[in-house]
Protein backbone atom coordinates (compact mmCIF):
# COMPACT_ATOMS: atom_id res chain seq x y z
CA UNK A 1 0.00 0.00 0.00
CA UNK A 2 1.20 3.48 -0.82
CA UNK A 3 1.40 6.38 1.51
CA UNK A 4 -1.70 8.07 0.13
CA UNK A 5 -4.90 7.84 2.11
CA UNK A 6 -7.18 9.22 -0.58
CA UNK A 7 -6.74 8.50 -4.26
CA UNK A 8 -9.02 9.88 -6.92
CA UNK A 9 -8.36 8.88 -10.47
CA UNK A 10 -10.40 10.61 -13.15
CA UNK A 11 -13.40 10.41 -10.86
CA UNK A 12 -16.77 11.20 -12.39
CA UNK A 13 -20.29 11.23 -11.18
CA UNK A 14 -23.34 12.37 -13.06
CA UNK A 15 -26.96 12.57 -12.06
CA UNK A 16 -30.00 12.47 -14.23
CA UNK A 17 -32.27 15.34 -13.47
CA UNK A 18 -35.80 15.19 -14.74
CA UNK A 19 -37.20 18.66 -14.94
CA UNK A 20 -40.91 19.10 -15.28
CA UNK A 21 -41.85 20.90 -18.42
CA UNK A 22 -45.24 21.92 -19.69
CA UNK A 23 -47.88 19.24 -19.32
CA UNK A 24 -46.67 15.67 -19.22
CA UNK A 25 -43.40 16.18 -21.03
CA UNK A 26 -40.36 15.90 -18.90
CA UNK A 27 -36.91 17.01 -19.89
CA UNK A 28 -34.14 14.59 -19.06
CA UNK A 29 -30.86 16.27 -18.41
CA UNK A 30 -27.56 14.83 -17.26
CA UNK A 31 -25.65 16.87 -14.71
CA UNK A 32 -21.95 16.19 -14.22
CA UNK A 33 -21.53 16.91 -10.54
CA UNK A 34 -17.97 15.59 -10.53
CA UNK A 35 -16.32 15.67 -13.90
CA UNK A 36 -12.94 13.99 -13.95
CA UNK A 37 -11.10 14.78 -10.73
CA UNK A 38 -7.64 13.30 -10.21
CA UNK A 39 -5.92 13.96 -6.91
CA UNK A 40 -4.30 12.18 -4.03
CA UNK A 41 -3.91 13.03 -0.38
CA UNK A 42 -1.03 11.65 1.68
CA UNK A 43 -1.37 10.35 5.21
CA UNK A 44 -1.09 13.16 7.73
CA UNK A 45 -1.94 15.97 5.34
CA UNK A 46 -4.60 18.60 6.03
CA UNK A 47 -6.42 19.50 2.88
CA UNK A 48 -9.04 22.16 2.31
CA UNK A 49 -11.53 21.38 -0.39
CA UNK A 50 -13.24 24.52 -1.54
CA UNK A 51 -15.62 25.55 -4.27
CA UNK A 52 -18.86 27.42 -4.81
CA UNK A 53 -22.20 25.85 -3.96
CA UNK A 54 -22.94 23.04 -6.36
CA UNK A 55 -19.32 22.75 -7.49
CA UNK A 56 -19.21 19.06 -6.59
CA UNK A 57 -17.69 19.08 -3.10
CA UNK A 58 -20.35 17.08 -1.33
CA UNK A 59 -20.65 14.60 -4.18
CA UNK A 60 -16.92 13.93 -3.98
CA UNK A 61 -17.19 13.40 -0.24
CA UNK A 62 -20.11 11.02 -0.66
CA UNK A 63 -18.04 8.97 -3.09
CA UNK A 64 -15.06 8.99 -0.70
CA UNK A 65 -17.13 7.75 2.20
CA UNK A 66 -19.05 5.03 0.39
CA UNK A 67 -22.43 6.74 0.21
CA UNK A 68 -22.35 7.07 -3.58
CA UNK A 69 -20.92 4.89 -6.34
CA UNK A 70 -18.80 6.79 -8.90
CA UNK A 71 -20.17 6.86 -12.45
CA UNK A 72 -16.68 6.19 -13.68
CA UNK A 73 -13.09 6.54 -12.55
CA UNK A 74 -11.52 5.17 -9.43
CA UNK A 75 -11.64 6.14 -5.79
CA UNK A 76 -9.67 4.63 -2.92
CA UNK A 77 -10.03 5.74 0.66
CA UNK A 78 -7.64 4.29 3.26
CA UNK A 79 -6.82 1.70 0.60
CA UNK A 80 -10.42 0.47 0.35
CA UNK A 81 -12.99 0.70 -2.35
CA UNK A 82 -15.57 2.78 -0.49
CA UNK A 83 -18.96 1.32 -1.49
CA UNK A 84 -18.21 -2.43 -1.50
CA UNK A 85 -16.04 -2.13 1.62
CA UNK A 86 -18.17 0.49 3.31
CA UNK A 87 -18.25 -1.12 6.74
CA UNK A 88 -14.53 -1.78 6.91
CA UNK A 89 -13.86 1.75 5.74
CA UNK A 90 -16.27 3.21 8.30
CA UNK A 91 -13.99 1.98 11.10
CA UNK A 92 -11.12 4.08 9.78
CA UNK A 93 -12.82 7.33 8.89
CA UNK A 94 -14.77 9.90 10.82
CA UNK A 95 -17.25 12.06 8.98
CA UNK A 96 -19.09 15.21 10.00
CA UNK A 97 -21.74 16.61 7.73
CA UNK A 98 -22.32 20.13 8.96
CA UNK A 99 -25.93 20.11 7.87
CA UNK A 100 -26.86 16.67 9.16
CA UNK A 101 -26.58 15.14 12.54
CA UNK A 102 -24.83 11.96 13.60
CA UNK A 103 -26.16 12.28 17.10
CA UNK A 104 -29.29 10.88 18.65
CA UNK A 105 -31.69 13.77 18.78
CA UNK A 106 -33.49 12.79 21.98
CA UNK A 107 -30.56 11.42 23.93
CA UNK A 108 -28.06 13.27 26.09
CA UNK A 109 -24.80 13.91 24.26
CA UNK A 110 -22.88 11.56 26.50
CA UNK A 111 -25.11 8.63 25.54
CA UNK A 112 -24.55 9.28 21.84
CA UNK A 113 -20.81 8.81 22.44
CA UNK A 114 -21.35 5.58 24.32
CA UNK A 115 -23.60 4.23 21.57
CA UNK A 116 -21.04 5.14 18.91
CA UNK A 117 -18.30 3.44 20.90
CA UNK A 118 -20.50 0.33 20.98
CA UNK A 119 -21.23 0.54 17.25
CA UNK A 120 -17.49 0.68 16.59
CA UNK A 121 -17.01 -2.18 19.06
CA UNK A 122 -14.48 -0.30 21.13
CA UNK A 123 -13.52 -2.05 24.36
CA UNK A 124 -14.72 -0.08 27.39
CA UNK A 125 -11.19 0.50 28.69
CA UNK A 126 -10.27 2.21 25.41
CA UNK A 127 -13.55 4.05 24.84
CA UNK A 128 -13.83 5.64 28.30
CA UNK A 129 -10.53 7.54 28.31
CA UNK A 130 -10.95 8.53 24.66
CA UNK A 131 -14.40 9.99 25.27
CA UNK A 132 -13.12 11.83 28.36
CA UNK A 133 -10.26 13.20 26.29
CA UNK A 134 -12.67 14.50 23.64
CA UNK A 135 -15.00 15.97 26.26
CA UNK A 136 -12.05 17.78 27.73
CA UNK A 137 -10.61 18.94 24.40
CA UNK A 138 -13.91 20.26 23.06
CA UNK A 139 -15.17 21.56 26.42
CA UNK A 140 -18.35 19.56 26.40
CA UNK A 141 -18.81 18.95 30.15
CA UNK A 142 -21.33 21.73 30.64
CA UNK A 143 -23.97 20.18 28.37
CA UNK A 144 -23.12 16.47 28.42
CA UNK A 145 -26.45 15.51 29.95
CA UNK A 146 -28.54 17.82 27.76
CA UNK A 147 -30.54 16.12 25.02
CA UNK A 148 -29.04 16.92 21.65
CA UNK A 149 -32.20 18.66 20.43
CA UNK A 150 -31.73 21.34 23.09
CA UNK A 151 -28.12 22.16 22.22
CA UNK A 152 -27.12 25.34 20.44
CA UNK A 153 -25.63 24.99 16.98
CA UNK A 154 -22.09 25.57 18.25
CA UNK A 155 -22.49 23.06 21.06
CA UNK A 156 -24.00 20.50 18.73
CA UNK A 157 -21.25 20.92 16.18
CA UNK A 158 -18.58 20.32 18.81
CA UNK A 159 -20.54 17.25 19.81
CA UNK A 160 -20.61 16.09 16.19
CA UNK A 161 -16.85 16.43 15.86
CA UNK A 162 -16.31 14.49 19.06
CA UNK A 163 -18.72 11.81 17.81
CA UNK A 164 -16.75 11.44 14.60
CA UNK A 165 -13.49 11.04 16.54
CA UNK A 166 -14.53 8.51 19.19
CA UNK A 167 -13.01 5.61 17.26
CA UNK A 168 -9.73 7.44 16.50
CA UNK A 169 -10.17 7.49 12.71
CA UNK A 170 -7.12 7.80 10.48
CA UNK A 171 -9.00 10.19 8.24
CA UNK A 172 -11.35 12.91 9.39
CA UNK A 173 -13.70 14.37 6.80
CA UNK A 174 -15.50 17.56 7.74
CA UNK A 175 -18.15 18.91 5.40
CA UNK A 176 -18.81 22.56 6.29
CA UNK A 177 -18.03 22.14 9.99
CA UNK A 178 -18.10 25.85 10.79
CA UNK A 179 -21.21 26.84 8.84
CA UNK A 180 -23.43 29.07 10.93
CA UNK A 181 -21.07 29.17 13.92
CA UNK A 182 -20.07 32.40 15.65
CA UNK A 183 -16.43 33.48 15.77
CA UNK A 184 -15.77 32.02 19.21
CA UNK A 185 -17.25 28.62 18.40
CA UNK A 186 -15.32 28.51 15.14
CA UNK A 187 -12.08 29.34 16.86
CA UNK A 188 -12.62 26.77 19.60
CA UNK A 189 -13.24 24.12 17.00
CA UNK A 190 -10.16 25.08 15.01
CA UNK A 191 -7.94 25.05 18.09
CA UNK A 192 -9.20 21.64 19.00
CA UNK A 193 -8.59 20.28 15.51
CA UNK A 194 -5.05 21.59 15.49
CA UNK A 195 -4.30 19.95 18.84
CA UNK A 196 -6.00 16.72 17.84
CA UNK A 197 -3.99 16.48 14.64
CA UNK A 198 -0.73 17.19 16.44
CA UNK A 199 -1.49 14.40 18.88
CA UNK A 200 -3.02 11.71 16.68
CA UNK A 201 -1.63 12.56 13.24
CA UNK A 202 -5.12 12.39 11.78
CA UNK A 203 -5.43 13.22 8.12
CA UNK A 204 -7.95 15.99 7.56
CA UNK A 205 -10.14 16.78 4.60
CA UNK A 206 -12.29 19.82 5.08
CA UNK A 207 -14.81 21.61 2.91
CA UNK A 208 -15.68 25.11 3.90
CA UNK A 209 -16.87 28.51 2.78
CA UNK A 210 -14.67 30.22 5.31
CA UNK A 211 -11.15 30.99 4.14
CA UNK A 212 -9.95 31.37 7.73
CA UNK A 213 -10.67 27.68 8.30
CA UNK A 214 -8.28 26.90 5.48
CA UNK A 215 -5.67 29.38 6.70
CA UNK A 216 -5.69 28.03 10.22
CA UNK A 217 -6.00 24.34 9.50
CA UNK A 218 -4.80 23.32 6.06
CA UNK A 219 -1.43 22.95 4.35
CA UNK A 220 -2.99 22.37 1.00
CA UNK A 221 -6.00 23.58 -0.94
CA UNK A 222 -8.01 21.95 -3.69
CA UNK A 223 -10.34 24.28 -5.53
CA UNK A 224 -13.15 22.60 -7.41
CA UNK A 225 -15.38 24.31 -9.92
CA UNK A 226 -18.13 22.75 -12.03
CA UNK A 227 -16.86 19.31 -11.11
CA UNK A 228 -13.30 19.97 -12.24
CA UNK A 229 -10.20 20.69 -10.20
CA UNK A 230 -9.27 24.34 -10.71
CA UNK A 231 -6.32 24.50 -8.32
CA UNK A 232 -4.24 22.07 -6.29
CA UNK A 233 -1.44 23.44 -4.15
CA UNK A 234 -0.56 25.44 -1.07
CA UNK A 235 -2.53 28.36 0.25
CA UNK A 236 0.36 30.86 -0.32
CA UNK A 237 0.51 29.50 -3.85
CA UNK A 238 -3.17 30.21 -4.29
CA UNK A 239 -2.66 33.65 -2.80
CA UNK A 240 0.00 34.34 -5.42
CA UNK A 241 -2.43 33.53 -8.19
CA UNK A 242 -5.47 35.25 -6.82
CA UNK A 243 -5.88 38.15 -4.47
CA UNK A 244 -6.88 36.71 -1.12
CA UNK A 245 -7.46 40.17 0.19
CA UNK A 246 -9.53 40.95 3.19
CA UNK A 247 -11.49 44.10 3.55
CA UNK A 248 -11.76 46.12 6.73
CA UNK A 249 -14.82 48.36 6.69
CA UNK A 250 -14.80 51.14 9.29
CA UNK A 251 -17.51 53.59 10.29
CA UNK A 252 -15.98 56.91 11.24
CA UNK A 253 -17.31 59.30 13.86
CA UNK A 254 -17.21 62.17 11.32
CA UNK A 255 -17.40 62.03 7.53
CA UNK A 256 -13.86 62.34 6.14
CA UNK A 257 -12.21 62.52 2.76
CA UNK A 258 -10.71 59.09 1.87
CA UNK A 259 -8.11 58.19 4.50
CA UNK A 260 -4.84 56.81 3.10
CA UNK A 261 -2.75 54.36 5.16
CA UNK A 262 0.54 52.64 4.23
CA UNK A 263 -0.41 48.97 4.71
CA UNK A 264 -3.80 48.91 2.95
CA UNK A 265 -5.61 50.32 -0.06
CA UNK A 266 -8.62 52.52 0.42
CA UNK A 267 -11.01 50.90 -2.01
CA UNK A 268 -14.31 52.56 -1.20
CA UNK A 269 -15.73 55.55 0.56
CA UNK A 270 -19.46 55.70 1.18
CA UNK A 271 -21.89 58.00 2.99
CA UNK A 272 -19.71 61.05 2.22
CA UNK A 273 -16.74 59.28 3.74
CA UNK A 274 -18.43 58.14 6.96
CA UNK A 275 -17.84 54.55 5.93
CA UNK A 276 -14.54 53.60 4.31
CA UNK A 277 -13.18 50.25 3.16
CA UNK A 278 -9.57 49.12 3.26
CA UNK A 279 -8.27 46.10 1.37
CA UNK A 280 -5.17 44.37 2.74
CA UNK A 281 -3.28 41.16 2.18
CA UNK A 282 -3.31 39.07 5.37
CA UNK A 283 0.15 37.60 4.69
CA UNK A 284 1.87 41.01 4.80
CA UNK A 285 -0.06 42.83 7.50
CA UNK A 286 -2.79 42.31 10.06
CA UNK A 287 -6.22 43.74 10.60
CA UNK A 288 -5.01 45.26 13.86
CA UNK A 289 -2.19 47.07 12.07
CA UNK A 290 -4.54 48.54 9.49
CA UNK A 291 -6.99 49.54 12.20
CA UNK A 292 -4.24 51.21 14.21
CA UNK A 293 -3.14 53.20 11.19
CA UNK A 294 -6.68 54.31 10.41
CA UNK A 295 -7.40 55.16 14.06
CA UNK A 296 -4.34 57.40 14.14
CA UNK A 297 -5.93 59.55 11.43
CA UNK A 298 -9.63 59.39 12.26
CA UNK A 299 -11.93 58.32 15.07
CA UNK A 300 -13.32 54.82 14.37
CA UNK A 301 -16.84 54.15 15.68
CA UNK A 302 -17.45 50.65 14.37
CA UNK A 303 -15.82 48.10 12.11
CA UNK A 304 -16.43 44.87 10.21
CA UNK A 305 -13.99 42.54 8.55
CA UNK A 306 -14.93 40.64 5.42
CA UNK A 307 -13.29 37.54 4.03
CA UNK A 308 -12.67 36.90 0.36
CA UNK A 309 -15.60 34.90 -1.01
CA UNK A 310 -14.85 31.50 -2.53
CA UNK A 311 -16.86 32.53 -5.58
CA UNK A 312 -14.53 35.51 -6.16
CA UNK A 313 -11.45 33.32 -5.77
CA UNK A 314 -12.73 30.86 -8.33
CA UNK A 315 -13.64 33.66 -10.71
CA UNK A 316 -10.17 35.22 -10.54
CA UNK A 317 -8.57 31.79 -10.99
CA UNK A 318 -10.34 31.48 -14.29
CA UNK A 319 -9.48 34.99 -15.41
CA UNK A 320 -5.80 34.24 -14.81
CA UNK A 321 -5.99 30.93 -16.61
CA UNK A 322 -7.64 32.32 -19.73
Amino acid at each position, binding site marked *: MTDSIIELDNLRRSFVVRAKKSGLRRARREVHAVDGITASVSTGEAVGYIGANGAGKSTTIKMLTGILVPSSGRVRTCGYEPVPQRR*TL*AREIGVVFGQRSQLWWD*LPLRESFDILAAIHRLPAEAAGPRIDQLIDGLQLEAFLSTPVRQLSLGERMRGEVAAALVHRPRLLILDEPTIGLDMISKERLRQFLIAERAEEGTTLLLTTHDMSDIERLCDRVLVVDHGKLAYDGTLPGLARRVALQRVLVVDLAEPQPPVQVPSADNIASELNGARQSFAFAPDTTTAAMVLAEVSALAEVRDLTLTEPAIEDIVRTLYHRAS
Partner: protein
Amino acid sequence: MTYRSSFWINTVNSFFSGILEFVETYVLLTNTPTLGGLNFAQASLVFGLANLGWSLADLVFGQSDNIPRYIREGKLEAFLVRPMPLLAQMITSDFQLRRLGRAFLGLVIAVIVLFWVHLDFNVATIYLLITTPLYGAAIYGALFVLAGGLQFWIVDGSEFTNSFVYGGSYAGHLPGSALLLPLRVFFTFVFPVTVTAYVPCLIMLGMPGPAWLPAWLGWLPPVFAAWTWLLAAVVWRRGVRHYTGAGG
Protein backbone atom coordinates in the same frame (compact mmCIF):
# COMPACT_ATOMS: atom_id res chain seq x y z
CA MET B 1 -37.36 7.21 27.84
CA THR B 2 -37.22 10.87 27.07
CA TYR B 3 -40.84 11.74 26.58
CA ARG B 4 -42.62 9.94 29.37
CA SER B 5 -46.14 11.26 28.94
CA SER B 6 -45.94 10.93 25.19
CA PHE B 7 -44.91 7.32 25.69
CA TRP B 8 -47.96 6.54 27.78
CA ILE B 9 -50.31 8.35 25.43
CA ASN B 10 -48.91 6.42 22.50
CA THR B 11 -49.01 3.10 24.31
CA VAL B 12 -52.63 3.59 25.31
CA ASN B 13 -53.39 4.82 21.80
CA SER B 14 -51.91 1.81 20.09
CA PHE B 15 -53.70 -0.43 22.59
CA PHE B 16 -57.05 1.13 21.71
CA SER B 17 -56.48 1.12 17.97
CA GLY B 18 -55.93 -2.62 18.33
CA ILE B 19 -59.19 -2.92 20.26
CA LEU B 20 -60.98 -0.98 17.55
CA GLU B 21 -59.81 -3.43 14.93
CA PHE B 22 -61.02 -6.28 17.08
CA VAL B 23 -64.41 -4.61 17.47
CA GLU B 24 -64.60 -4.49 13.69
CA THR B 25 -64.34 -8.26 13.53
CA TYR B 26 -66.85 -8.49 16.36
CA VAL B 27 -69.38 -6.31 14.52
CA LEU B 28 -68.95 -8.35 11.38
CA LEU B 29 -69.59 -11.57 13.24
CA THR B 30 -72.57 -10.46 15.29
CA ASN B 31 -74.38 -9.69 12.04
CA THR B 32 -73.36 -12.84 10.27
CA PRO B 33 -73.11 -15.87 12.51
CA THR B 34 -70.01 -17.24 10.82
CA LEU B 35 -67.20 -15.62 8.90
CA GLY B 36 -65.59 -17.82 6.29
CA GLY B 37 -66.82 -20.93 8.08
CA LEU B 38 -65.54 -19.86 11.52
CA ASN B 39 -67.66 -18.78 14.43
CA PHE B 40 -66.83 -15.75 16.53
CA ALA B 41 -64.56 -17.51 18.98
CA GLN B 42 -62.66 -19.25 16.21
CA ALA B 43 -62.31 -16.03 14.20
CA SER B 44 -61.07 -14.35 17.38
CA LEU B 45 -58.35 -16.96 17.65
CA VAL B 46 -57.24 -16.06 14.12
CA PHE B 47 -57.37 -12.39 15.01
CA GLY B 48 -55.46 -12.88 18.25
CA LEU B 49 -52.63 -14.90 16.76
CA ALA B 50 -52.28 -12.66 13.69
CA ASN B 51 -52.38 -9.57 15.86
CA LEU B 52 -49.68 -10.88 18.17
CA GLY B 53 -47.40 -11.73 15.24
CA TRP B 54 -48.09 -8.43 13.54
CA SER B 55 -47.45 -6.33 16.63
CA LEU B 56 -44.16 -8.13 17.34
CA ALA B 57 -43.05 -7.42 13.76
CA ASP B 58 -44.16 -3.80 14.10
CA LEU B 59 -42.21 -3.49 17.34
CA VAL B 60 -38.97 -4.55 15.66
CA PHE B 61 -39.25 -3.56 12.00
CA GLY B 62 -41.94 -0.88 12.18
CA GLN B 63 -39.69 1.97 11.09
CA SER B 64 -38.01 0.29 8.16
CA ASP B 65 -40.81 1.45 5.87
CA ASN B 66 -39.94 5.04 6.70
CA ILE B 67 -37.08 5.31 4.23
CA PRO B 68 -38.13 8.61 2.59
CA ARG B 69 -38.08 10.29 5.98
CA TYR B 70 -34.60 8.96 6.70
CA ILE B 71 -33.40 10.13 3.30
CA ARG B 72 -34.88 13.58 3.72
CA GLU B 73 -33.46 14.07 7.19
CA GLY B 74 -30.05 12.91 5.99
CA LYS B 75 -30.07 10.15 8.60
CA LEU B 76 -29.43 7.54 5.97
CA GLU B 77 -26.08 9.15 5.17
CA ALA B 78 -25.17 9.19 8.82
CA PHE B 79 -26.04 5.49 8.97
CA LEU B 80 -23.94 4.75 5.91
CA VAL B 81 -20.75 6.05 7.48
CA ARG B 82 -21.01 3.71 10.44
CA PRO B 83 -19.64 0.18 10.48
CA MET B 84 -22.96 -1.59 10.88
CA PRO B 85 -25.50 -2.98 8.45
CA LEU B 86 -28.08 -0.41 7.48
CA LEU B 87 -31.08 -2.46 8.50
CA ALA B 88 -29.65 -3.16 11.93
CA GLN B 89 -29.15 0.56 12.52
CA MET B 90 -32.61 1.31 11.30
CA ILE B 91 -34.15 -1.15 13.73
CA THR B 92 -32.15 0.09 16.69
CA SER B 93 -32.33 3.80 15.87
CA ASP B 94 -35.92 4.16 16.83
CA PHE B 95 -37.03 1.16 18.83
CA GLN B 96 -40.55 2.18 19.67
CA LEU B 97 -41.51 0.72 22.97
CA ARG B 98 -44.93 2.28 22.67
CA ARG B 99 -45.74 -0.43 20.16
CA LEU B 100 -45.58 -2.74 23.15
CA GLY B 101 -49.16 -1.64 23.85
CA ARG B 102 -50.22 -3.31 20.65
CA ALA B 103 -48.21 -6.44 21.34
CA PHE B 104 -49.65 -6.63 24.84
CA LEU B 105 -53.18 -6.41 23.44
CA GLY B 106 -52.39 -9.18 20.97
CA LEU B 107 -51.21 -11.37 23.83
CA VAL B 108 -54.25 -10.60 26.00
CA ILE B 109 -56.71 -11.39 23.21
CA ALA B 110 -54.89 -14.58 22.30
CA VAL B 111 -54.93 -15.77 25.93
CA ILE B 112 -58.60 -14.88 26.49
CA VAL B 113 -59.60 -16.63 23.29
CA LEU B 114 -57.77 -19.76 24.38
CA PHE B 115 -60.18 -20.16 27.31
CA TRP B 116 -63.12 -19.57 25.10
CA VAL B 117 -62.53 -21.57 21.99
CA HIS B 118 -62.53 -25.31 22.58
CA LEU B 119 -59.15 -26.55 21.53
CA ASP B 120 -57.77 -30.01 21.92
CA PHE B 121 -54.52 -29.25 23.75
CA ASN B 122 -52.24 -31.90 22.32
CA VAL B 123 -48.58 -31.51 21.41
CA ALA B 124 -49.37 -30.32 17.89
CA THR B 125 -51.74 -27.59 19.09
CA ILE B 126 -49.30 -26.33 21.68
CA TYR B 127 -46.49 -26.32 19.13
CA LEU B 128 -48.65 -24.34 16.70
CA LEU B 129 -49.83 -21.91 19.37
CA ILE B 130 -46.27 -21.05 20.28
CA THR B 131 -44.69 -20.96 16.84
CA THR B 132 -47.48 -19.33 14.84
CA PRO B 133 -47.06 -15.82 16.27
CA LEU B 134 -43.28 -16.11 15.91
CA TYR B 135 -43.39 -17.13 12.26
CA GLY B 136 -46.16 -14.59 11.80
CA ALA B 137 -43.85 -11.91 13.18
CA ALA B 138 -41.12 -13.08 10.79
CA ILE B 139 -43.47 -12.87 7.80
CA TYR B 140 -44.88 -9.46 8.69
CA GLY B 141 -41.35 -8.25 9.48
CA ALA B 142 -40.25 -9.29 6.01
CA LEU B 143 -43.16 -7.32 4.57
CA PHE B 144 -41.96 -4.21 6.40
CA VAL B 145 -38.44 -4.66 5.07
CA LEU B 146 -39.77 -5.31 1.59
CA ALA B 147 -41.80 -2.11 1.80
CA GLY B 148 -38.70 -0.24 2.95
CA GLY B 149 -36.67 -1.61 0.07
CA LEU B 150 -39.30 -0.52 -2.44
CA GLN B 151 -39.35 2.98 -1.01
CA PHE B 152 -35.81 3.55 -2.22
CA TRP B 153 -37.34 3.73 -5.68
CA ILE B 154 -40.64 5.32 -5.03
CA VAL B 155 -40.01 8.27 -2.78
CA ASP B 156 -43.29 9.04 -1.03
CA GLY B 157 -44.26 5.54 -1.98
CA SER B 158 -45.49 4.75 1.51
CA GLU B 159 -49.09 5.04 0.27
CA PHE B 160 -48.37 2.22 -2.13
CA THR B 161 -46.39 0.06 0.27
CA ASN B 162 -48.94 0.62 3.04
CA SER B 163 -51.51 -0.96 0.79
CA PHE B 164 -49.80 -4.31 1.04
CA VAL B 165 -48.20 -3.97 4.48
CA TYR B 166 -51.31 -2.78 6.28
CA GLY B 167 -53.69 -4.28 3.75
CA GLY B 168 -51.82 -7.55 4.08
CA SER B 169 -51.99 -7.42 7.83
CA TYR B 170 -55.74 -6.81 7.62
CA ALA B 171 -56.12 -9.79 5.34
CA GLY B 172 -54.05 -11.84 7.78
CA HIS B 173 -56.36 -11.01 10.67
CA LEU B 174 -59.37 -12.42 8.84
CA PRO B 175 -60.20 -16.02 8.14
CA GLY B 176 -58.60 -16.66 4.77
CA SER B 177 -61.75 -18.36 3.49
CA ALA B 178 -63.57 -15.03 3.70
CA LEU B 179 -61.28 -13.61 1.02
CA LEU B 180 -62.10 -13.79 -2.67
CA LEU B 181 -60.24 -16.61 -4.32
CA PRO B 182 -57.66 -14.44 -6.21
CA LEU B 183 -56.95 -12.46 -3.05
CA ARG B 184 -56.73 -15.68 -1.07
CA VAL B 185 -54.12 -17.05 -3.45
CA PHE B 186 -52.24 -13.75 -3.53
CA PHE B 187 -52.16 -13.43 0.25
CA THR B 188 -50.97 -16.99 0.60
CA PHE B 189 -48.46 -17.62 -2.12
CA VAL B 190 -47.12 -14.10 -2.73
CA PHE B 191 -47.52 -12.30 0.58
CA PRO B 192 -48.29 -15.28 2.78
CA VAL B 193 -50.28 -13.50 5.49
CA THR B 194 -52.98 -16.18 5.75
CA VAL B 195 -50.24 -18.48 7.00
CA THR B 196 -49.58 -16.15 9.95
CA ALA B 197 -52.74 -17.27 11.74
CA TYR B 198 -55.64 -18.63 9.73
CA VAL B 199 -54.09 -21.76 8.23
CA PRO B 200 -52.41 -22.96 11.46
CA CYS B 201 -55.75 -22.32 13.21
CA LEU B 202 -57.42 -24.68 10.76
CA ILE B 203 -55.15 -27.44 12.00
CA MET B 204 -55.78 -26.59 15.63
CA LEU B 205 -59.53 -26.52 15.04
CA GLY B 206 -59.38 -29.71 13.00
CA MET B 207 -61.03 -28.11 9.99
CA PRO B 208 -60.34 -28.60 6.30
CA GLY B 209 -59.20 -25.58 4.35
CA PRO B 210 -61.10 -23.82 1.59
CA ALA B 211 -60.13 -24.15 -2.08
CA TRP B 212 -56.43 -23.44 -2.72
CA LEU B 213 -55.76 -23.27 0.98
CA PRO B 214 -55.38 -26.80 2.33
CA ALA B 215 -54.96 -26.98 6.10
CA TRP B 216 -51.65 -28.84 5.89
CA LEU B 217 -50.07 -25.60 4.72
CA GLY B 218 -50.35 -24.67 8.38
CA TRP B 219 -47.28 -26.80 9.06
CA LEU B 220 -45.23 -24.78 6.60
CA PRO B 221 -44.91 -21.23 8.01
CA PRO B 222 -41.09 -21.65 8.17
CA VAL B 223 -41.07 -22.19 4.41
CA PHE B 224 -43.25 -19.15 3.80
CA ALA B 225 -41.19 -17.06 6.22
CA ALA B 226 -38.01 -18.08 4.40
CA TRP B 227 -39.59 -17.15 1.07
CA THR B 228 -40.73 -13.69 2.24
CA TRP B 229 -37.35 -13.00 3.80
CA LEU B 230 -35.59 -13.99 0.61
CA LEU B 231 -37.83 -11.63 -1.33
CA ALA B 232 -37.37 -8.88 1.25
CA ALA B 233 -33.59 -9.29 1.35
CA VAL B 234 -33.28 -9.09 -2.42
CA VAL B 235 -35.47 -6.00 -2.67
CA TRP B 236 -33.78 -4.31 0.29
CA ARG B 237 -30.26 -4.90 -1.04
CA ARG B 238 -31.22 -3.68 -4.47
CA GLY B 239 -32.89 -0.68 -2.91
CA VAL B 240 -29.75 0.28 -1.00
CA ARG B 241 -27.70 -0.20 -4.12
CA HIS B 242 -30.14 1.96 -6.05
CA TYR B 243 -29.73 4.68 -3.46
CA THR B 244 -25.94 4.68 -3.56
CA GLY B 245 -26.12 4.63 -7.33
CA ALA B 246 -28.60 7.42 -7.87
CA GLY B 247 -27.80 9.67 -4.96
CA GLY B 248 -30.07 11.42 -2.54
